[in-house]
């Protein structure tokens, strides 16, 4: 176990994995785009505009999923003092923030033609906006403390407090009468979405998930190099990979 959590081992393992996962991401993305834009039929109510869903819904799922991972890694880092968990949590924040932004922006682009407004102070929309601020707060807090270990600890506490927002986002459409419609896919029983539309949605969601793995690994490798700059393995590695 200790071996796998060592930054040196992780650095080289991640380096070997990245090209393979990236290739798989590209294949899944292309398949999802093909099914979503060319194969899936138009919606009976919303016509072609519903195709925004194939970006919007996976982005929104990722925004919450990455936050849970970030808070979970923060908790692991706080309890067991594992450096790699800190590095992972730090790498999650900017990626999660970008997915949150994408969910909000595409939601706006979808809301204008369908609902008739770019933005409404709706419970679902407002709680997703709070999630965006939580990510920004995490990054600002982490950047404002020089010592990386102390910075990670402070940011992890913020992330854990913010976890309360995740069930609020998820259940907002059930707890209140909101403009945003309830969930289509995670509904108990059969999803209220046609199989020809569900397939590209799930493909895109899977593609986004492994895309996240790729970019998180890229960020983690950078942070490992910076944190381990005094070690001999970093010096040896740089020596052996001279440009």
């Amino acid at each position, binding site marked *: 176990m200790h071996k796998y959590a060592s930054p040196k081992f992780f650095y080289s393992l991640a380096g070997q994995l990245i090209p393979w996962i990236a290739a798989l991401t590209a294949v899944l993305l292309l398949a999802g785009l093909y099914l979503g*834009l*060319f194969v899936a039929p*138009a919606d009976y109510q919303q*016509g*072609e*505009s519903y*195709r*925004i869903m194939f*970006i*919007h819904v996976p*982005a929104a799922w990722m925004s919450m999923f990455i936050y849970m991972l970030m808070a979970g890694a923060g908790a692991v880092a706080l309890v067991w003092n594992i450096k790699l968990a800190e590095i992972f949590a730090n790498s999650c924040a*900017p*990626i999660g923030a*970008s*997915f949150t*932004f*994408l969910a909000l*922006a*595409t939601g706006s*682009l*979808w809301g*204008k*033609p369908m609902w008739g407004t770019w933005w409404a102070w709706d419970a679902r929309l407002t709680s997703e906006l709070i999630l965006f601020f939580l990510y920004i707060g995490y990054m600002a807090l982490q950047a404002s403390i020089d010592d990386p270990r102390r910075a990670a600890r402070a940011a992890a506490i913020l992330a854990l407090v913010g976890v309360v927002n995740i069930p609020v986002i998820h259940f907002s459409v059930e707890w209140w009468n909101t403009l945003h419609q309830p969930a289509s896919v995670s509904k108990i029983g059969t999803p209220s979405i046609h199989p020809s539309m569900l397939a590209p949605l799930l493909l895109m969601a899977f593609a986004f998930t492994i*895309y996240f793995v*790729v*970019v998180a690994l*890229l*960020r983690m*490798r*950078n942070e490992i*190099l*910076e944190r381990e*700059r005094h070690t001999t393995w*970093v*010096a040896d590695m*740089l020596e052996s990979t001279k440009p």
Partner: protein
Amino acid sequence: MNWTEFFAMGGYSQYVWGSYGLAALILILNLYLPLRRRKTVRRLLREFLRLKEQTR
């Protein structure tokens, strides 16, 4: 298949293509930024190690 019709997206082209374009931009930026950072970090670390060597 009719490409003009495809790009028109039933009159919702600016919203649909705006969303897909924004997604492409964000996915590319998330790849580009850490890759550029990697170059910078490696260059700085090499300099740092060279200085350490000299002052020893």
